[in-house]
């Protein structure tokens, strides 16, 4: 009822949904999760062919100049299949950082990424930083013409597979100063970079990355020295909206799976779907998804042309609504699936887990409600 697509957007949606429907059964996905890298390089090549990897980027960086809504459409479709490929890390996080910063590094690396030839990862969160984007303890000390990087990053999505890492490090100031954060581009294979990959509870891959006297030249700086935070904030705000779009796809699927399951499953001689108390719960799930979706698309439309303050406010609002909806839809979906919903063989649990972690990512609904409130009262 709330989102009307252009023909181009409908094409993106159709092709992504088709891929998801064909290649993303829960069994197929589980095989990818259990594989070495946790995703399919073949799928990745397909993503590149379909032009998805360049969708949001400026044409000067080899992209297709897609809008915020274009991206939301794609992410929503991918969310329906709980796609595990490193789209978020390469495109939404690291790719966007490159695109926004621009310069020779972006011009060199983005086209390779867009072509599917280079995986990127975004190394920003730290063990003690929580969700404070300006809390950076990793240091990049001046060292001759270049820098020497030390410290640890965590939850670097697909850090184990990435060819290049975008790393935030403190080049000046105190640990939580807004100024003094600089973005660097490093080879994952660079000396002193140690990557410990791991699974995530929602079927993805991430890594702890430790830097021990990693030497880089000044040409490794992405954007402007000491001024990395504004890019990081833009990346994360945009990501919040696009993850909400992914959540929208996952919620849609969770509602549909629940409706289908309750229609099939009989208890006390009747389908579960005939019990009014459960019907009303499903109506609430439907509603939660619909409103989260509407707000997400509204924010996605705003992304193309807004001030940083408007962007931050919209992202926070979306995180609140999406997080609360994801929790309601995910938890009720499991509840209505009963014991079956607790088993790993049923698809629903995987949606529930992803929805839970999208809420948690970059701070949950409560965190962003507080953030939103603080912004409004400034």
């Amino acid at each position, binding site marked *: *009822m*709330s*989102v*009307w697509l252009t023909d181009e957007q409908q094409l993106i949606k159709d092709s992504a949904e088709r891929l998801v429907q064909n290649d993303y059964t829960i069994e197929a996905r589980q095989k990818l999760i259990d594989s070495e890298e946790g995703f399919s390089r073949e799928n990745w090549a397909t993503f590149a062919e379909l032009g998805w990897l360049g969708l949001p980027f400026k044409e000067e960086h080899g992209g297709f100049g897609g809008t915020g809504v274009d991206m939301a459409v794609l992410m929503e479709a991918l969310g329906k299949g709980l796609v595990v490929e490193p789209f978020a890390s390469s495109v939404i996080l690291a790719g966007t950082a490159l695109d926004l910063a621009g310069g020779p590094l972006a011009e060199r690396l983005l086209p390779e990424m867009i072509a599917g030839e280079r995986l990127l990862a975004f190394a920003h969160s730290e063990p003690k930083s929580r969700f404070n984007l300006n809390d950076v303890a990793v240091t990049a000390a001046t060292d001759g013409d270049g820098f020497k990087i030390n410290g640890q990053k965590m939850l670097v999505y697909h850090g184990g597979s990435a060819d290049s890492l975008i790393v935030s490090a403190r080049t000046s100031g105190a640990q939580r100063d807004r100024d003094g954060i600089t973005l660097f581009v490093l080879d994952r294979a660079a000396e002193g970079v140690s990557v410990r990959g791991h699974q995530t509870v929602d079927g993805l891959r991430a890594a702890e990355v430790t830097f021990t006297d990693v030497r880089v030249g000044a040409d490794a700086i992405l954007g402007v020295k000491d001024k990395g935070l504004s890019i990081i904030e833009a990346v994360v705000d945009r990501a919040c909206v696009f993850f909400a779009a992914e959540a929208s796809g996952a919620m849609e699927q969770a*509602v549909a799976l629940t*409706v289908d399951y*309750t*229609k099939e499953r009989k208890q006390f001689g009747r389908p579960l*779907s*005939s019990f*009014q108390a459960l*019907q*009303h719960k*499903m*109506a*609430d799930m*439907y*509603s939660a998804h*619909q*409103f*989260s979706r*509407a*707000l997400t*698309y*509204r*924010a996605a*439309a*705003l992304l193309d042309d807004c001030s940083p303050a*408007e962007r931050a*406010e*919209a992202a926070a*609002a979306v995180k*609140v*609504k999406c997080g609360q909806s994801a929790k309601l839809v995910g938890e009720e979906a499991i509840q209505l699936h009963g014991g079956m919903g607790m088993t790993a063989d049923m698809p629903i649990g995987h949606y529930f887990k992803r929805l839970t972690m999208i809420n948690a990512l970059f701070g949950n609904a409560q965190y962003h*409600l*507080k953030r*939103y*409130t*603080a912004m*409004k*009262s400034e």
Partner: protein
Amino acid sequence: MELVLSAEDEAFRQEVRAFIRDKLDPETKRKVELGYPLDKNDYVQWHKRMFEQGWAAPNWPVEYGGPGWTPIQRHIYDEELALGSTPRVIPFGVSMVAPVIYTFGSAEQKAKYLPRILSFDDWWCQGYSEPGSGSDLSSLRTKAVRDGDHYIVNGQKTWTTLAQYADMIFCLVRTDDSGKQQEGISFLLIDMKTPGISVTPIETIDGDVEINSVFFEDVRVPVENLVGEEGKGWTYAKFLLGHERTGIAAVGRSKRQLARLKTIAEHEVNGDITLAEDTDFQERVSQVEIELFALEAMVIGALEGEARGNPPGPEASILKIKGVEVQQAITELAVEAVGNHAHAFAPDTWDIHANEPGIGPDYAATAAPIYFNWRKASIYGGSNEIQREIIAKRVLGL
């Protein structure tokens, strides 16, 4: 997170805003701002101003006097009316009976009633609910028996808002008892001055007397006052329910109430700070504001769909539920905001010309009564439970 409008729509908004600024009586505006009761004249005068402007019936086809606006313009208009603290549009004529008349009525009915609805020369009220019906509307029992060229109507309607001011009432009546409950219902237009009609006010829990029982005792209604076909009244009632689904979300009204809530918070002191600086309280305000943004996004989407020829179907029930949730949440926060001032009940002072000053700040006077009153919103017009039934059955296919 403001809406991005086209330059044209933005210009339209400014035009509406200027109209309200110029034409709304300041005393009426003040009463609306303070949540004080309005008298009949406040409504009538404002309706007539809209009529003079040609803006009395945004939802009507141009041929009957509608202004020919786009769905978005209608939304902007509604929103500005609400933000401008105008008296609420009494919907029973312009939004409810009129679409039934111009869609199903006779040429004579159109000619007779539509102009007087437009000019607000007739105040209409709605004769749907009965004691004992409620959510199960089609179980109604008011009878209309044919007697020559009249129907003789007997029975009782209830929950009839502002019937005390009404010139006309549109009624669902039972003309046939033999078939299914929904069959045998007819749609009658009845002059309130007809002998045998009496109106009794019902006091509501907020102390208000806005709703009424309307009694019919051998009321003779000319057969030409039957709309459409006898026995098809349920169809028209359902048509009406489906009409203007997006308006029920009341986005504009909630925006104004939210703005008013913020003003209250700036005036209420909590120790060293105002309530506007109280993070805890403000987080609850933020939550409502975010819900309201989501609601508005959904409404705009539905309006865009309407403009594309895809009006919302039963899924619009979620607009009603969410709209009401937002409205009720705001009334509740207002009670919280005014603190100890929520307790006093002094309706004699709810008048800008009252002899005595109010008890406590004027913005606090009606906070609790409005919260009480607004509980009705999740009951009438299809209760929240009925809306969930609609979603479950007609959207999810359960």
